[in-house]
C-alpha cells in the first residue's frame, strides 16, 4: 500500500485568524448576493449579483468541500507517483504544470451543452436555473469529475468503461458502453439540430458557417506542408479569414443572386449536415478536423473570457422575472414541470456524464501530482458551471417577450410578428410586432421567430452585451453572427469528431459478430461504420427537424436524460469504489448526488414515456396522431397519411430509446448494489489500484 497513513491530513477548517476573516467575508458577501437575487422582486436585478453569488459559492465549495473530498474522502497522496511520472514518455504521459493541464481539461469539457441548456431553462425564470447550476455543480458535477479523474489517475489512466468492467464486471461494462454509444448518437443529433435551427433561412449565417470549411482546409494545407506544426500562425490566419467571412456574409445576404445559394430550409440543412458529417469524418484528420478544432478551441476560450469581461463591464439588468409561471410545465421552449425537467434541461453546466469520459481520457495521463487533482477535476467543473451561469445571464438580459418569440414553435405563436406579439401578450409579456421586426433587422436576419435551440437566443443575448462594449447598435448584426459562427464552429467540430468516435464504437461492437468490421484502417469497414454512425444520428436529426413540436422539445430532454444517466453511472462506479476502499463513512458524498440524479432521470424518463400530455409523453403523442389517422384527419405539420405514420414511428422510437436508457441505468444500479454488498462483506480493501508496487 502507498503511505496514505503517513501523509499528514490537512485540516479543513481555516487555521489562522486572517483566513477565518477572509472566508467569513466571502460567505457573507455570497449570502447577501444570493439573498438579493432570490428575494428581490419588483425591480430588475443586476447580473452582477448573480456573478458575485456564483463566485462566492464556487470559492467556498472549492476551499472547503473540495478540500474535504481530497483530504478525507479520497486521501490524495502527493507523494504517490502518478501515471505521468511512472510512464513518462514525453508524448502521451507527460507530467504537466497544473495550470497548463487545467486549460487542457477545461477546453475538453467545455462544449455547447452548458451554453444551450441554461438558455432553454431561462423560460422558468433566472432563479431556478441559477440555484440548480450552483447546487448541482458543487454537490454532483464537480464531485463526479474530481472522483473519476482521481480513480482513473490511480488506475493508469484507464477509461470509464474499463474501470466499470474491471471493478464491477464484464456485463455492466458492456451495458455501459452501449449506453455511451446511444448517448453519443443523441448528442450528435441534438447538436446538429441546434445548428440547423440557427441557420434555417439565414443566408448570412449559412455563408459564414460554410466558409469555415475552405478556411479550415487552407489552414490544414498550410500546417501540413508550408509551415508544419505552426499552430499559432495557422490559427491567426484562420481567425482573420473567419472575421472576413462574417463581414462578407452581409453583402451575400443582401445580394439577390448570392443569397438564394445560401438560403435553406431545415430539412435541406439536415441533409447537408449529414453529407458533411460523412465526408468530414472519412477525410484525413489534418485537412479539416484538426485545423477547425484549433479555431473552435481558441475561439471558445476567447469568447468565454470576452463574455465574462463584457458582463462585468456592461453590468446588464436581468429582464426575465425571477420565476415565471411556466414552472407549471406549460412553457414553449420545453414542456414539463420544474421537477424533473429543469434538472434534465440544464444538463452539462451542473452535472454532465460526458465529463466522466474526459476525466478518464487524456487528462489523467498528464497529472503531475495527486495534489493537483482538486484544482483540475473540481476546479475545471466549477469554471464550466460559470460558463453556464453566463449563458443564463445572456438569455435573461433579453426582453422576456423576445426570448419567448425566439423559443416558441410556430404552432404556438404563428409565423408573423403580429401573431407572435399577440400570442406572447396572452402569456403576460408585452411586445409590439414592430419591436420584433426591428430586432430582426438589428441582427441582420429576416425573422427571429421560433429560432429554438438556444444558439440564436444566446447569440442575441451576447450581441446585446458585446455591442454595448464595442460598436453599439451598428455592430449588433456582426456580434450576432459572430456568436452563431462561434457556436456552429465547435458544434461542427464535435459532430465530425463524434462521428469518428461513434464509428469506432460501432466497428468494435459489430466486430464481435463480423470480424472484418474490426479493421478500422480499411476503407470498406470504415465507410460502412461511418455510414451507420451518420445514419443513426441523421435519423434523429431529421425527425427532429420535421418534428411538430419543434425538435428541441423532443431531443433535448432525451439528451439531458441520457447525459444525466451517464453521470449517475459514473457516480455509481465512484460509490462502489469508495466502498471497495473501505471508505464507507464517506460514501454519502457520491450516494446523495446519485440518488438525486436517479430520481430526476427516472421520473423524467417515466413522464416522457407515459405522461398523458402529448407535449410531454411520447406514447400519448403517438396516440394522438394514430387516433387522428383512424378518424381520417391529418394533423399539422404532417401533410399526408404517410407523414403521420412517420411521426408515429418517430415517437415510438424515441419511447424505445427512453426505455433503453432506463434499463441501462437500472441494471448498472443493480450491479452497483451487488458490488457494494460484496465490498462490505470483505474485511480488506478490494479495490484494484495500479502503481502501488512501484517505488516512489
Amino acid at each position, binding site marked *: 500500500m502507498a503511505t496514505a497513513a503517513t501523509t499528514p491530513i490537512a485540516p479543513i477548517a481555516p487555521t489562522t485568524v486572517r483566513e477565518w476573516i477572509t472566508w467569513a467575508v466571502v460567505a457573507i458577501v455570497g449570502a447577501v448576493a444570493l439573498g438579493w437575487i432570490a428575494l428581490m422582486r419588483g425591480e430588475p436585478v443586476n447580473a452582477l449579483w448573480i456573478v458575485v453569488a456564483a463566485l462566492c459559492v464556487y470559492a467556498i465549495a472549492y476551499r472547503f468541500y473540495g478540500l474535504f473530498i481530497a483530504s478525507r474522502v479520497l486521501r490524495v497522496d502527493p507523494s504517490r507517483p502518478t501515471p505521468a511520472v511512472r510512464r513518462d514518455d514525453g*508524448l502521451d504521459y507527460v507530467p504537466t504544470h497544473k495550470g*497548463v493541464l487545467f*486549460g*487542457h481539461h477545461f*477546453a*475538453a469539457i467545455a*462544449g455547447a451543452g452548458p451554453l444551450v441548456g441554461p438558455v432553454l431553462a431561462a423560460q422558468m425564470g433566472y432563479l431556478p436555473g441559477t440555484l440548480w447550476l450552483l447546487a448541482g455543480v458543487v454537490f454532483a458535477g464537480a464531485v463526479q469529475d474530481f472522483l473519476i479523474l482521481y480513480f482513473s489517475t490511480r488506475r493508469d489512466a484507464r477509461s470509464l468503461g474499463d474501470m466499470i468492467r474491471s471493478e464491477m464486471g464484464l456485463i455492466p461494462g458492456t451495458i455501459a458502453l452501449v449506453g455511451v454509444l446511444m448517448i453519443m448518437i443523441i*448528442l450528435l443529433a441534438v447538436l446538429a439540430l441546434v445548428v440547423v435551427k440557427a441557420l434555417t433561412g439565414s443566408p448570412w449565417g449559412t455563408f459564414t458557417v460554410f466558409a469555415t470549411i475552405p478556411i479550415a482546409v487552407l489552414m490544414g494545407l498550410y500546417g501540413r506542408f508550408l509551415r508544419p506544426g505552426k499552430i499559432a500562425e495557422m490559427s491567426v490566419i484562420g481567425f482573420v479569414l473567419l472575421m472576413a467571412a462574417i463581414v462578407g456574409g452581409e453583402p451575400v445576404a443582401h445580394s439577390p443572386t448570392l443569397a438564394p445559394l445560401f438560403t435553406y430550409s431545415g430539412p435541406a440543412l439536415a441533409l447537408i449536415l449529414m453529407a458533411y458529417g460523412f465526408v468530414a469524418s472519412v477525410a484525413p484528420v489534418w485537412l479539416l478536423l484538426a485545423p477547425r478544432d484549433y479555431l473552435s478551441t481558441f475561439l471558445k476560450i476567447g469568447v468565454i473570457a470576452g463574455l465574462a469581461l463584457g458582463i462585468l463591464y456592461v453590468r446588464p439588468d436581468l429582464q426575465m422575472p425571477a420565476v415565471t409561471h411556466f414552472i407549471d410545465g406549460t412553457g414553449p421552449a420545453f414542456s414539463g414541470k420544474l421537477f424533473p425537467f429543469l434538472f434534465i434541461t440544464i444538463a452539462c453546466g451542473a452535472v*454532465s456524464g460526458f465529463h466522466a469520459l474526459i476525466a478518464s481520457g487524456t487528462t489523467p495521463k498528464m497529472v503531475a501530482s495527486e495534489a493537483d487533482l482538486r484544482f483540475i477535476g473540481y476546479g475545471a467543473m466549477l469554471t464550466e458551471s460559470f460558463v453556464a451561469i453566463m449563458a443564463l445571464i445572456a438569455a435573461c438580459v433579453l426582453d422576456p417577450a423576445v426570448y419567448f418569440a425566439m423559443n416558441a414553435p410556430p404552432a404556438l405563436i404563428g409565423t408573423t410578428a403580429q401573431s407572435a406579439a399577440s400570442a406572447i401578450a396572452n402569456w403576460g409579456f408585452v411586445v409590439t410586432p414592430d419591436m420584433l421586426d426591428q430586432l430582426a433587422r438589428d441582427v441582420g436576419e429576416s425573422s427571429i421567430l421560433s429560432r429554438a435551440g438556444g444558439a440564436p437566443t444566446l447569440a442575441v443575448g451576447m450581441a446585446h452585451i458585446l455591442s454595448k462594449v464595442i460598436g453599439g447598435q451598428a455592430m449588433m448584426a456582426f456580434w450576432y453572427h459572430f456568436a452563431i459562427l462561434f457556436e456552429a464552429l465547435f458544434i461542427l467540430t464535435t459532430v465530425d469528431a463524434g462521428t469518428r468516435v461513434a464509428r*469506432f464504437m460501432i466497428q468494435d461492437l459489430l466486430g464481435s459478430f463480423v470480424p472484418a468490421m474490426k479493421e478500422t484502417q480499411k476503407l470498406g469497414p470504415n465507410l460502412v461504420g461511418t455510414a451507420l454512425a451518420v445514419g443513426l444520428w441523421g435519423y434523429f436529426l431529421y425527425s427532429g427537424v420535421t418534428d411538430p413540436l419543434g425538435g428541441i422539445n423532443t431531443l433535448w430532454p432525451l439528451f439531458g436524460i441520457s447525459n444525466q444517466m451517464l453521470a449517475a453511472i459514473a457516480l455509481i462506479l465512484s460509490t462502489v469504489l469508495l466502498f471497495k476502499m473501505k471508505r464507507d463513512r464517506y460514501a454519502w458524498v457520491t450516494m446523495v448526488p446519485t440518488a438525486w440524479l436517479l430520481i430526476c432521470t427516472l421520473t423524467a424518463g417515466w413522464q416522457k414515456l407515459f405522461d398523458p400530455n402529448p407535449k410531454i409523453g411520447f406514447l400519448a403523442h403517438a396516440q394522438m396522431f394514430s387516433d387522428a389517422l383512424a378518424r381520417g384527419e391529418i394533423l399539422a405539420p404532417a401533410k399526408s397519411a404517410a407523414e403521420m405514420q412517420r411521426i408515429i414511428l418517430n415517437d415510438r422510437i424515441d419511447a424505445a430509446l427512453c426505455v433503453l436508457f432506463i434499463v441501462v441505468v437500472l441494471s448498472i444500479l443493480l450491479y452497483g448494489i451487488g458490488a457494494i454488498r460484496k465490498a462490505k462483506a470483505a474485511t480488506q480493501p478490494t479495490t484494484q489500484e495500479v502503481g502501488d508496487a512501484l517505488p516512489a
Partner: protein
Amino acid sequence: MRFLHKLAEGARLMVGVPDYDRYVAHRAAHHPGEPVMTLKEFHRDRVDRRYGTGPGAPPRCC
C-alpha cells in the same frame, strides 16, 4: 516571459500537442542514441494520435 511560455504551452496542449522541447529532453535523458522525431514528425504524430484511430482517441464533450 515564463508566463508567456506557459500560456503558449497551455494553448498547444488544449489542442493536444505537448511540449516538443520536453519530448526531446526526455528522449535524450532516457533513450540516448535512439531516434528522435523532428518537429514535423512530432506534430504529425500528435495530430494522428488526437483525432486518429484506435482506443486512444480522446472523447469529445457536449
